[in-house]
């Protein structure tokens, strides 16, 4: 008792932890606020002096950034906002595919590191050691500039792999399935089939439980699903109504046209005018376009004979295919010669009038007599086919020598636009937008991809002119970045997997062996399910790392959010807004992953108890 009386009742405030803490916080807050105020003041005065944009008003103006990789339609005429959105989508595109592939590779390598086989174990170990200890940046330039860029070019000799795959310095193209004409009719069938699947599954389960015998519920359900959706597929493909030719028109984009419903008839596409990918069309090349072309020839800019390449068609896929050259009296002298019928043609001057191409009858360097010739290319009889490309646009004849200079392209594009008014409805006007200008080849390139009216269309890649058409394509940039990210991240996932498997107590293996399980059964039924619980949380943070590492995309010229933002910052000078945008984009991605991680952790925690 005596001791307690010695202690003073109140602690002086300068030794009171609470007061001190409060004081410390106040001082800290003052310092932080002051620092922020000074920096903010600096930024505002610097911005005021340099007249750089400090708000987001520039988001709505024309970006003018060419982006090769676009999951949604985009032209350089679109806004900055759309360009940035494309960047964000591209980030997701590489992250999603990368995460799946890295998981597969990483888990495989992690398991291989524990294999009984000495060689397999060593290969896996050295794979991890070497690639984990090399900067990702070096790996990206290795894949992009050293490996993929040295592959044969697409135009001359792509590597053709079995199964219709093509591999070249433009990337990888492989066959893919796209929704076709009848897809919309097929959709209700699929919905019905899914509903039926659920019902059959439920009923069968009840039956199995009632019968008290072992059995599987899903085969019958799957059968029902397949039956309904399969029937639907054929019905939809057979009876799909093909819309009448619409009043369609073009907006010109480099290398391709976009079909749209010209609702107000002004010949230009407004934002609210729907895009049409699926219309039967007649393709005609307008007079204006050819005239522009012949002007070029008269000016002797082209030295090679003009080669027309026509749609990639296969035998029996079309009913009639008609190319005529109309117009002036001179026109009678010109015909089209198929060099590689019907994929490539050549306009020649039929000097002896026999209608057959002889050597030396090419339209020569001066393009004599070529001026003012109208060419009409008609593709008729496609009652079940449509002319459309993968992006839902229509590939129209590009009557423009590939590799023209930029200003020529502009001229021609204008000519193409002005030609629109000269023709009536239900026709498409040839608009000679330049194909990718980096290909130096004097061809008049025309590519039209033909699609069937089936519910699904099997599209194979081909190289009609200088780049891939059809199929699904991974560009060289995408492929290089994906390879580097997957291979690099997989080393970390492999280590996580290995640690997770090793963390399962040895007794589990011994117990399952004692129960008579085989090695494979032990692994897949006892060890791995337990390891997954340990593996999953760090694995998700590796997924986040992969997504964040995709910001090294500028090294592979891939337009993801950081690359686009950097270009935007350079163009607009809007440092502050772009900084905010970058940080917000990545924080959203990070939060998404930590959200997933929390869910996973919560579920694992329940399982543990």
């Amino acid at each position, binding site marked *: 008792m005596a001791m307690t009386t010695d202690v003073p009742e109140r602690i002086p405030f300068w030794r009171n*932890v609470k007061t001190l*803490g409060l004081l*410390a*916080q*106040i001082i*800290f*807050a003052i310092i*932080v606020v002051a620092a922020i105020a000074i*920096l903010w*003041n*600096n*930024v505002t*005065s*610097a*911005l005021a002096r340099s007249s750089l944009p400090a708000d987001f008003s520039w988001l709505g103006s024309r970006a003018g950034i060419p982006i090769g990789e676009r999951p949604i339609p985009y032209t350089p005429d679109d806004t900055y906002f759309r360009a940035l959105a494309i960047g964000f989508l591209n980030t997701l595109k590489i992250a999603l595919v990368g995460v799946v592939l890295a998981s597969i590779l990483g888990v495989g390598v992690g398991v291989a590191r524990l294999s*009984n*086989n*000495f*060689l*397999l174990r060593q*290969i896996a170990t050295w794979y991890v*050691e*070497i690639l*984990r*200890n*090399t*900067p*990702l*940046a*070096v*790996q990206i*330039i*290795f894949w992009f*500039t*050293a*490996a993929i*860029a*040295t592959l044969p070019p697409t135009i001359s000799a792509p590597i053709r792999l079995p199964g219709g795959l093509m591999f070249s310095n433009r990337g990888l193209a492989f066959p893919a399935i796209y929704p076709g004409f009848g897809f919309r009719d097929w959709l209700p069938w699929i919905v019905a089939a899914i509903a039926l699947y659920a019902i059959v599954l439920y009923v069968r389960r009840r039956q199995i439980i009632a019968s008290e015998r072992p059995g599987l519920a899903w085969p019958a359900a799957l059968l029902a699903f397949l039956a309904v959706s399969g029937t639907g597929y054929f019905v939809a493909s057979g009876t799909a109504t093909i819309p009448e030719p619409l009043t369609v028109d073009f907006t010109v984009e480099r290398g391709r046209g976009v079909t749209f419903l010209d609702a107000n008839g002004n010949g230009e596409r407004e934002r609210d005018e729907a895009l049409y990918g699926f219309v039967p069309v007649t393709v005609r090349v307008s007079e204006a376009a050819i005239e522009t072309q012949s002007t070029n020839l008269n000016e002797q800019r082209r030295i090679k004979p003009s080669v027309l390449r026509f749609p990639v068609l296969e035998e029996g896929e079309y009913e009639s295919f008609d190319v005529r050259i109309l117009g002036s009296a001179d026109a009678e002298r010109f015909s089209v010669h198929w060099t590689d019928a019907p994929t490539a043609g050549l306009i020649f001057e039929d000097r002896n009038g026999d209608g057959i191409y002889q050597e030396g009858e090419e339209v020569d360097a001066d393009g004599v007599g070529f001026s003012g010739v109208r060419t009409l290319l008609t593709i008729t009889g496609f009652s079940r086919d449509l002319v459309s490309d993968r992006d839902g646009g229509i590939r129209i004849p590009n009557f423009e020598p590939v590799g023209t200079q930029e200003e020529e392209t502009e001229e021609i594009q204008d000519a193409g636009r002005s030609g629109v008014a000269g023709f009536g409805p239900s026709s498409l006007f040839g608009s000679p937008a330049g194909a990718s200008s980096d290909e130096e080849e004097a061809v008049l390139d025309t590519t039209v991809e033909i699609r069937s009216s089936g519910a699904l269309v099997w599209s194979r890649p081909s190289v009609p002119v200088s780049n891939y058409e059809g199929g699904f394509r991974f560009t060289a940039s995408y492929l290089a970045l994906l390879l580097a990210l997957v291979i690099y991240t997989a080393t970390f996932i492999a280590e996580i997997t290995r640690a997770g498997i090793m963390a399962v107590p040895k007794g589990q293996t011994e117990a399952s062996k004692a129960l008579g399980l085989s090695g494979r059964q032990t692994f897949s039924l006892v060890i791995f399910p337990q390891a997954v619980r340990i593996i999953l949380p760090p694995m998700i943070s590796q997924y986040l790392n992969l997504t*964040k*590492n995709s*910001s*090294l995309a500028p*090294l592979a010229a891939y337009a993801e959010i*950081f690359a686009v933002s*950097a270009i935007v*910052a350079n163009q607009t000078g809007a*440092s*502050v807004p*772009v*900084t905010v945008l*970058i*940080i917000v984009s*990545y*924080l959203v991605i*990070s*939060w998404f992953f930590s959200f997933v991680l929390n869910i996973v952790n919560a579920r694992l925690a329940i399982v543990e108890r």
Partner: protein
Amino acid sequence: MQMIPDRLPPAGERGAIAWLRRNLFSGTVNAIVSIALGSFVALSLFNLGRWMLTGASWQPVWNNMKLLAIYRYPAELAWRPIIAVGVLLMLTGLTAALGQRVGKGKIMTGVYFWFGSLAWFLTLVALIAWPSVRVAWLLATLMSVAGYAIGWYVPRVVRAQSWLWAAGLPIVLVLIYGVGGSGSFAVVGTSQWGGFLLTVVIAAFGITVSFPLGIALALGRRSNLPAIKYFSIGFIEVIRGAPLITWLFIASLMVPLLLDVAPDSIPALTRALVAVTLFSAAYMAENVRGGLQSVPNGQREAARALGLSGWQTTRLIVLPQALRAVIPVLVGQAIGLFKDTSLVFIVGLHDFFEIGRRVIPSQPESLLYPGGVLLEISVFMAFAYFFFTYRMSIASRQLEKELGVGER
């Protein structure tokens, strides 16, 4: 009862054949896998070897060794960074030998011999082919050997060890930066730094400065004071949310604005260092926090019971245990940072990676090679980075074992 004497296993169960059977041909599937993989590996190694020896053109790499090492650092002053390497190796050798004498220091010895052998190899190359740096490399080698010898034969220096390190690092900095005047110790501005020198400088600076910052942030995050706690959380989470390359880009955009000065007045190196250090500090903080959480609460309570103040508890009881637990993780982070320095090209610095990626391929001589020189250069760069990071990751694993962190 009679003991049966030990006998060797039967002949078929020992030696190379038994090993082969156990590890490669234990079953049909295993045998097939072994043969397939074996031929794949042999073929790959053969092709790789053939390409390295006959196919690849290493001339551009060889010709640009100076660029790759120090970029625009004046050639007549190249001896200074080399001597700096000598100083560092000398200190490492000293520590390694001192440790060896008392039966420890296996890790340091490994590091010393790994990097020492690189220096000795370069000395050999210099003696044959680089007359201008011959003497400097020879001196560096002598210094590295001398360091080890002193440590071995004069064990009394153990008391001066930390002082020697503390003195050595400023010496290294002075050697690289210079003192003044126009003679041998002329100042070499940071704009002239580049190549591997810059890579090492950025990595070393980033790790050293971010270490105290990271500890402060980690302690701040666990603080009871809301203002400090939420500031730390906000800082750590925002920085960790976006990748380093974006922070470098943001630093190059924002640092001049934040300080309200002309963009050119801030050296690119400063911007890079700001971004790298803050980024590294946020990660460091999370690693240290992991260590802090691993210290049992009883330690804290015991310390308080003994009458230690809060600050003393943290400094003397909690932090030493926490840091000890996370040393391997911190080495891992150092490796990561070393690799990440390859991104400083974003702010316009010419580090090792940028010289290989942009400078050498754009030289007129390099353009003469059909197919470019990037394949050879990227292979060389990968090897160079690997040489450094691999040794560090071995050290991290040894540390883990020595500290018993990996086994619980």
